[in-house]
């Protein structure tokens, strides 16, 4: 099944929207995905000097769910993302992956544990082709004596497999330089690179920011595919409420470093989430 096929199926929100948590009580939250907890964030605090970025965040993210983290600028969503992806360490609190406590000190630790991040800038090298971008830093190699040489045939074959077979984008030529791609295709290449590491969790930072409707649609289908076919837990960090209402199984709202609610799209609206993001409470 490809990205397009996966999108035709109805997203499985797990709990089907029952028992939505009270706005201020995020301890009793709807369950999504398979119901197995993938990532546990327990009482996480983060301070940068005198600035408090996160205060006592408690959150469980489940296997095979699409979890969206929303909030206004400075709400702490990027800080929480950076803690999960190993860029920052929490000042206080614990993070568990598959029940095991983790203490990432850098992004490589997170990668080894199966957590991949696609940053907003996508970290693509425009002058290089898609296959090279996907495998940069991890090329399949062939040993000749003591020296390792890049196996370009294998690199292309694996890149083709990821882009054409797994992501279903057969129209994309993997020899194309990234600078020739549309916004949605660039996002797809960034996701393809994470798939080369066989991740369990993918964090997408503002995945549809500044994209056209068509390009955003391609990204949505890719996210559906990751969950449905690859069984990957996807965490989306976004400030676009319209976007996450379409694709997320659950939505966590951060306000001034506090996780003020976790809800499901069926129980939320653009207006209610906007209120929560901007004031920390639901309006009337």
């Amino acid at each position, binding site marked *: 099944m490809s990205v397009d096929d996966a999108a035709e199926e109805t997203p499985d929100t797990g709990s089907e929207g029952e028992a939505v948590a009270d706005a201020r009580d995020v301890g009793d939250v709807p369950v999504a995905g398979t119901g197995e907890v993938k990532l546990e964030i327990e009482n996480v605090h983060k301070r940068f000097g005198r600035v408090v970025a996160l205060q006592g965040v408690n959150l469980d993210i489940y296997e095979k769910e699409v979890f969206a983290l929303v909030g206004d600028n400075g709400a702490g969503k990027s800080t929480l993302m950076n803690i999960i992806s190993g860029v920052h360490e929490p000042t206080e609190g614990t993070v568990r992956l598959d029940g095991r406590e983790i203490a990432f000190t850098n992004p*490589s630790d997170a990668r080894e544990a199966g957590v991949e991040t696609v940053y907003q800038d996508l*970290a693509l090298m*425009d002058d*290089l082709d898609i296959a*090279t971008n996907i495998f*940069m*830093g991890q090329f399949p190699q062939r040993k000749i004596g003591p020296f390792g040489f890049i196996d*370009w045939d294998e690199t292309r074959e694996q890149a083709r497999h990821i882009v054409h077979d797994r992501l279903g984008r057969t129209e994309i030529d993997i020899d194309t330089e990234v600078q020739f791609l549309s916004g949605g295709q660039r996002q797809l290449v960034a996701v393809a690179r994470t798939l080369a590491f066989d991740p369990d969790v993918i964090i997408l930072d503002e995945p549809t920011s500044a994209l056209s409707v068509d390009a955003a649609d391609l990204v949505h289908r890719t996210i559906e595919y990751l969950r449905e076919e690859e069984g990957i837990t996807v965490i989306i960090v976004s400030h676009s409420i319209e976007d996450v209402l379409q694709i997320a199984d659950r939505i966590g709202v951060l306000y001034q470093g506090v996780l003020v609610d976790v809800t499901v799209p069926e129980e939320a609206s653009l207006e209610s989430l906007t209120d929560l993001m901007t004031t920390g409470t639901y309006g009337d």
Partner: protein
Amino acid sequence: MSTLDGFAGGLFESRDDFVLTLLDNMIWPILALVILAVYLLVPQTLQNVRSVRLIMWSAAPLALLVLAESLCLLSGHFDLSIGSIAGFSAMVSGMVLANCPSCWGLTTNPWIGFALIFTIGALIGVFNGVMVARFNVNPFLQTLAVLIIFQGGKTALNTQPISGLPSTYLFPGGTADFAIGVLVVAFVLFGVVMRYTPFGQAVYALGSDKDSALEVGIRTDRVIIAVYTISGVLSAFAGLLLTGFVGVVPPLIGEGLVFQAFAGAVIGGISLFGGRGKVTGALGGVLLIALIQSALNNSAAIEATQIQFFNGVVLLIAILLYNTRTSIRGRILASGAQ
């Protein structure tokens, strides 16, 4: 994008694709035109195989400097100090080996001379790399400072030609076949490293987008230091070949060569902003510059004192071609963007 018909249509997906490929390889039609012009205007330059061999022999030091500059440019950096490194390392090594009045004459062992010249080149390269990578010094300013320091240092050490060097020491640059062999091997090795090793691809990644390279796990600081170290070693090797070619260490050794190396790299299609360019293009650039130099030297109409003027004109033409190429490329990419 418009499409192409016929033979070109079979090779290229679109007209834009054809134009971009032509822009990336424009050194070859330019070289063909220059060969034709030299053949018609200064025929003695390409008189026979011997004269072509002489061009290649004299091009060997420049070839190593073009490779050094190309490596730095591909990584998104500059190295203005390559000629200065070539000159200073050759001067120090020559003073250690020779017995001239102003020389130190510490040994006549040519192998110590080889070790010394490469070590000096590597150390100056490491210095450049550490300053740029670890202390975030602007590459242009760092290598400009090093250019001035070591060019001045060379002049402070000695202002007379150094002769009486061991024949083994002069052999690499003084033997046509060996020097041409060095040129060929250097380009093949450089091509293999850049294409088939993770280091080579990391250099391209660094030049294309440093932040992205860092995010995908490339240790950019190490790559930068390695790039400048290799550049230093190649520059020192160029100094060794120049010494052998001339048979002495002339006081002005290495001076002004950085401009020819820049011209060769840029006209050969190496991007001034990194991440784009092929080793074959750089080879074309070397051949072009060497051919023009040889034609200028052979031309009865041009005085020796005017050659530097023409070197500047060649550099200017290279930069104008680069600008034109970048501009056309930008227009095509903008028209294809969604």
